[in-house]
């Protein structure tokens, strides 16, 4: 029972991370294609300025919770995915630093350098997180000792790549909508239009992913055992359609929330299909790591549950407050202030 509760929390933490950092990463990926001058770029940097660091902590928490609640999974997952994970880390390091450093100096070359870093530091994590999760849904070649038999190319299989592209598109729409909320004038218009256009591609890839999951994974098994789970798929699809509707009606915040729900739903769709596996083996189901054979002791799970149920709502409350405090558009006077990115 405890293990199952932790499985749900584990999925939710990852989903929240994807929803929150999703718009930063998506916007960072979109930036070079939508910004036409330095002011545009600074609006983009400042639109995520107060938030990106707090968003990234959800990743640290999701990783930490994997370590705390399912140490064996943490150990096997992180060492099996050694190369992609370190690439992800390098990318996130560069991303964080580029935000902080980029606008500190006026020099063209300096800013260009960090713009490139920011793009790579956003695009690479979006892609790799998608690739990693799609591969987990599909199963990873690990043996009974948890040793990985493969390399980076094993993970870059068609289904894995499709998952990566799906994540990039989800984040792009999410990020474009965020920019439409935070920017003014032509940049705002361009952002809204980009969200609308990319949405169609997202729709096609999402459909393809749902179909490919049928052939490449066992995710749907749980959906037939517990038909109530279909509600996740329904809500996700409704949110995806809702995003489009709200883009058309110009209700930017609603569109952004809908795309957030879409990201959470897409993550939970896979996670729900995974249960009770956390890290399935494609070599032999007997080698799969499940919530039961890889979890911590009941005492640790209990203590962690108390900590999580107390503090995660508090974190959510003050993060909502911080979004509310900085809900306004990024204006010229914001850019003129000494602290601005």
């Amino acid at each position, binding site marked *: 029972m405890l293990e199952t509760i932790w499985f749900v929390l584990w999925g939710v933490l990852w989903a929240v991370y994807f929803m929150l950092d999703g718009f930063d990463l998506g916007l960072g990926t979109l930036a070079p294609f939508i910004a036409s001058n330095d002011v545009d770029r600074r609006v983009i940097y400042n639109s995520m300025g*107060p938030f990106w660091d707090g968003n990234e902590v959800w990743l640290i*928490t999701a990783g930490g919770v994997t*370590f705390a609640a399912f140490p064996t999974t943490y*150990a096997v997952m992180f060492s099996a995915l050694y190369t992609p994970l370190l690439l992800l880390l390098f990318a996130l390091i560069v991303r964080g630093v580029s935000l902080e*450093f980029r606008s*500190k100096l006026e020099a063209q070359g300096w800013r260009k350098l960090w713009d490139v870093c920011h793009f790579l530091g956003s695009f690479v994590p979006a892609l790799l997180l998608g690739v990693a999760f799609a591969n987990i849904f599909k199963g990873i070649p690990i043996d009974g000792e948890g040793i990985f038999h493969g390399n980076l190319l094993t993970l870059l299989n068609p289904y894995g790549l499709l998952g990566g592209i799906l994540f990039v598109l989800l984040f792009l729409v999410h990020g474009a909508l965020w920019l439409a909320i935070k920017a003014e004038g032509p940049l705002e218009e361009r952002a809204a239009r980009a969200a609308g256009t990319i949405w169609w591609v997202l729709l096609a890839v999402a459909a393809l992913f749902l179909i490919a999951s049928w052939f490449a994974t066992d995710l749907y098994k749980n959906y037939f055992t517990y038909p109530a789970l279909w509600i996740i798929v329904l809500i996700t699809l409704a949110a995806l359609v809702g995003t489009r509707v709200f883009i058309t009606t110009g209700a930017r915040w609603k569109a952004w929330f809908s795309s957030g729900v879409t990201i959470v739903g897409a993550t939970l769709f896979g996670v729900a299909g995974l249960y009770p596996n956390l890290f399935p083996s494609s070599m032999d189901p007997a080698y799969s790591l499940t919530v039961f054979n890889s979890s911590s002791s009941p005492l*640790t799970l209990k203590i962690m549950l108390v900590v999580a149920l107390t503090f995660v709502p508090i974190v959510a409350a003050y993060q909502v407050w911080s979004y509310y405090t900085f809900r306004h558009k990024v204006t010229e006077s914001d850019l003129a202030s*000494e*602290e601005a990115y």
Partner: protein
Amino acid sequence: MLSRLQFAVATYFHFLFVPLTLGLSILVAIMETRYVQTSEHEYKRMAKFWGKLLVINFVLGVVTGITLEFQFGTNWSRYSKYVGDIFGSLLAIEATVAFFLESTFLGVWIFGWKKLSPKAHAVCIWLVAGASNFSAYWILVANSWMQHPVGYVIRNGRAELDNFLAVVTQPYAVFMFLHTVSGAYILAGFFVMGICAYHLLRNREVQFFKKSFAMAATFTVIFALAQIVIGDFHGREMAKAQPTKAAAAESVWNTTKGAPMYLLVIPDEENERNSVELFGIPKLLSLVATGDKDGEYKGLKEWPKEERPPVAATFWSFRLMVGLGFLLALISVIAWLKRHKVENSRQLLRLMMFAIPLPYLASELGWTVTEIGRQPWIVYGMMKTSDAASSVSGAQVGISLTAFVILYTLLGIGCFYLIAKFARKGPEPVQ
């Protein structure tokens, strides 16, 4: 072996940034509080100027911290599997209760000068400072557990949590925390005083930098003096919990009652003796380590060779750290005494400028003693480091290690350049 090197690189680099964050956030919080209390604009300028340096430094501490957390899984998977029940939960709690707080409110603080009332804004920086230090506590609890595992049982082929409170409140962790944060406050104090000295030597913004200097001097002298006591307590705790580390730190080979302390020692590891032992003060070592001048100090020969840490590295790091500690305490007392007329003591100012790297060196040496001195164990007495690594290929680790070194070198240069640039530029002119 490569994994150890990679972890060492990542840790040393991470700890170049963390102590300044821990200490400077408190100094900035004090400055901003003074602003709220007195409405003097000078204090706001101070908070903004030092805050800018804090923020540049902060981001590197954050991004390099994530690497450390993830490396336990990527490179130390057998360790993670064996102790994750305890160690993992401490890291997860750190993120949930402390790291969220500091990251979220730092963002609010940087961008909130005009959006929040001065009081609310000052509260934000206190939350950042408090959460950073709280975060350090959890991390040091986790590290202490590797030095001195408590509150666990070996069950199901791994270490499982048995007594959470024992883990979280063990004296080793408390003293290690006090020792680490005091060191961090000293480092931040010297950082501020050094930059003030640079400007005072050039007669720029004299009032501004004198005020900052005095504040930092008072802050530093308290912790530099306290550190002498705290360091001793931490050392005693270490000698109790990790006798091999204590023996290596002092390069004591034979168990002695009423052990003397030699001011000059050169260890000779091969022949299991010291090639030089000069200027001994009778019984001082036993007194310092056990509180009893006739107390027993265990020598390295009590343990087989394969259970001893590298003696020379542990010994020299420890000696140098302690020496620096006393030197810094002395300098900080002088700086504090002269704080009101510091602009006239050119020599002291020059000294303060060049003293900035010393506490950094002391901090890194401290970690060297802690980590090298624990070898060959990853968890003292429980698990050997050689049994802890992942089964990833050497080539993979070699590539990532190279990438780490290159990336960190570049980032380090970039960060140093920016901090130096803004530090030299001085505060924004009064509008």
